[in-house]
């Protein structure tokens, strides 16, 4: 061979580049003007304990001054091996485990499990239970979104909106607590229906709660949305393109804020959503900007829609005759051999359970697909080239729960 192979020449090139200036040797990124002014990038660990990470997400940032050169999310600090634990629990116990990976949408998490098992069993759920489930799922969505509507301004430095949001959360949590006994982990779903029927007079109190939240929602809106600084911090920041959303499997409000119009409540209807959709009560909220502001805007709009849906469910429950809310189950509950995939539109995005059973009383495998994991994995794409202050704005607008990331 007379010619130098291209690969070898490329290696030479690289060696020459690194060799310029001793001051630059060994630095990952050379910047600045030459040998004397070569600067070293700073590595900043955001987390695992940091106020902006809502828990133990860790971002390893390489900074050039305040600008982010690279970002590497490191997950797993809260990994509990929940999928393995599912395999040694029977279907009643799994609900307890499954409702807490995303601790802000416990009801939605329970729903996926019971729907998967019911589908495997070919079980018919009483109509009253379906409507109650829909109602509670939507109230749960409101609770979840209100949490983020309060915590996101905190990350941007506004300390007041969270107290407004928590007042509304408290109002709804009270009715949720009354019906289920739990304030976060409701444990109200059972395979085949619900734990028990609604308490007497609960429908009226829930109507009042929904009305109260709806009437006070404009206060949060005025406090945050009209604010110049809030807009300056969020509009045009962290724009997520539909291509990236498809590539990373981002879902939920974040995807819809970028114009990716996917909502399982409409696209793969479960519970009573088809009927609500036909009535025009359930509207799918989308925005096209794809920036932090659009994501936050979707959240607010979804709260309004969810409150409307909750009202429609309440009206319906008033009309429905009394009846059973669950199905009598055998002492030992076994799902027949086979597999199924149940996915639901959780408040944060698509939440799926892939259930494989070999006819035992425990699943052979229960794969958990969580929204936050995919939503967080797109972060490096969004953060590179932004400043640290934007990092917080973008991270906060990805609306994640660390338990949902780490499972």
């Amino acid at each position, binding site marked *: 061979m007379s010619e130098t*192979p*291209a*690969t070898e020449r*490329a290696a030479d*090139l690289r060696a*020459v*580049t690194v060799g*310029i200036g001793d001051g630059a040797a060994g630095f990952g990124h050379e910047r600045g003007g030459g040998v004397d002014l070569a600067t070293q990038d*700073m*590595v*900043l*660990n955001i987390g695992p304990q*940091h*106020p*902006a990470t809502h828990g133990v997400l860790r971002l390893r940032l390489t900074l050039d001054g*305040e600008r982010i050169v690279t970002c590497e999310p490191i997950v797993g600090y809260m990994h509990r091996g929940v999928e393995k634990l599912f395999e040694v629990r029977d279907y009643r116990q799994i609900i307890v485990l499954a409702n807490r990976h995303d601790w802000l949408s416990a009801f939605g998490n329970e729903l996926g499990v019971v729907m998967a098992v019911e589908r495997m069993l070919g079980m018919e759920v009483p109509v009253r239970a379906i409507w109650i489930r829909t109602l509670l799922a939507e109230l749960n969505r409101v609770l979840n979104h209100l949490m983020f509507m309060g915590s996101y*301004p*905190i*990350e*941007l*430095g*506004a*300390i*007041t909106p969270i*107290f*407004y949001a928590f*007042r509304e959360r408290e109002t709804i949590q009270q009715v949720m607590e009354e019906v289920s006994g739990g304030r976060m982990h409701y444990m109200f779903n059972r395979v085949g229906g619900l734990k028990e029927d609604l308490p007497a007079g609960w429908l009226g109190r829930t109507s009042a709660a929904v009305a109260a939240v709806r009437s006070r929602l404009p206060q949060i809106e005025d*406090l945050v949305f009209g*604010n110049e*600084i*809030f807009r*300056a*911090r969020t509009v045009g920041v962290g724009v997520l393109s539909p291509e990236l959303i498809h590539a990373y*499997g981002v879902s939920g409000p974040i995807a819809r804020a970028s114009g990716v119009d996917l909502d399982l409540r409409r696209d793969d209807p479960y519970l009573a959503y088809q009927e609500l959709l036909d009535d025009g009560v359930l509207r799918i909220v989308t925005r096209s900007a794809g920036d932090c502001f659009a994501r936050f805007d979707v959240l607010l709009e979804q709260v309004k829609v969810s409150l409307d849906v909750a009202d429609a469910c309440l009206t319906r429950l008033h009309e429905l005759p009394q009846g059973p809310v669950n199905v009598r189950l055998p002492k030992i509950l076994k799902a027949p*051999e*086979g*597999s*199924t*995939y149940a*996915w639901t539109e959780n408040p944060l995005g*698509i939440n*799926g359970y*892939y259930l*494989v*059973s*070999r006819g035992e009383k425990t699943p*052979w495998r229960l794969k958990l*697909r969580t929204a936050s994991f995919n939503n967080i994995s797109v972060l490096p794409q969004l953060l590179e080239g932004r*400043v*640290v*202050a*934007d*990092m*917080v*704005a973008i991270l906060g607008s990805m609306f994640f729960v660390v338990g949902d990331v780490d499972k």
Partner: protein
Amino acid sequence: MNYPSVHLAAEPSLDAFGTDNGWVIALKALLVFVFLVVFTLFNIWFERRVVARMQHRIGPNVNGPFGLLQSLADGVKLALKEDIIPKSADKVVYVVAPALSVIPAFIAWAVIPLGPVVTIPFTDIRTPLQLTDLPVGVLYILAVTSIGVYGIVLAGWSSGSTYALLGSLRSSAQVISYEVAMGLSFVTVFMYAGTMSMSGIVEAQAQNVWFILPLLPSFVIYAISMVGETNRAPFDLAEAEGELVGGFHTEYSSLKFALFFLAEYINLVTVSALAATLFLGGWRAPYPLSLWDGANEGYWPVLWFVGKCLAFIFFFIWLRGTLPRMRYDQFMKLGWKVLIPVSLVWIFGVSIVRVIQNEGGVDQQTLLIIAGVIVALLLASAFIPEKKPADEPAEPAGDFDAFAGGYPVPPMPGQRLPDPVVTVPADASQDQPRSDARDLDAPTNEEQSRG
């Protein structure tokens, strides 16, 4: 000491100062110190109560009447905490920094006038309620408070922590740029008062109107820059607990942290006192009260002065309860591209008006008309859209020469690196390409058959 015999006509005399005997000076210094410490404790409580009200909460109400002793209890507890010095810290600077931050905060109060000349009770000694005054009192405050910034910068640098370093970097840039805007907003006050001494400025406002009325733009600029100067929300970028954990004081604990905290709250009072003195007539009673002759005599003015300071502090708290934090670059943009140019134009305008008034050439009405026209023009200019920078035309994508000029260079915009040549094993092409595009969520037939 004799002053030069040539005086400007408008300059009030500083004769009342520098005549105190030793123990009076010591007493006044002690009282200023005590006042600041107690007022800080009060302000912490005040802030917590007010913010709590804004957030549908109650706030501290258990310790002492109305919870007033809460901050005292917190302070004692803070002082008893373990004092930690990080291993990677530069120890000397790390220890000196809090002192460097808190000492200037105290000594800035040497020239702040709290009241008129009073008689000390049980004696015949008459003395002004001000430790001392200088012909350049305001400049003294500017100088001293900017030393306090060194405390923040050095604290962040010496902590040996990334967050602290970022915080101190931000803080230094922030305070330097806002000090310029702040200084410029004082210039018009000096023009109207004819003096830089604090007591002289109060005196000038007694003969005239309060300077907030003729110099409203200066006051607005000062009000914005004083928030930036004190690192308070919405300009608390140096601390930014959501981003930088605690900013420059992340690594500090116990008394050293308490000193930073103390310095922040004293600075809060200092800028409020400065605003009250320069624009709101200092210790002089506000309008309806000023009709009473005794309002500006004896110890009453201290009350008016503290009241004015509290009004500003309430404003600070209100901002904190309402606004999110600005981003660093937006904040710098506000300072350099808005506040400083507006200040300069305003100073220019005020100096023209002052010259015309002093010459006595034009009457009041004509001046007002000219001012109205200028304001209208400025308002109109605010509606002219900002020119967007034209997109740079894309470079013609020439061939990439890795050795252009004889040494290795990166590709120019529009050029791309040649694809690396990948050596493919001879048998690789026979394998079927693996499909990675499979939807991970939807079960495939293969997986379903596994059950």
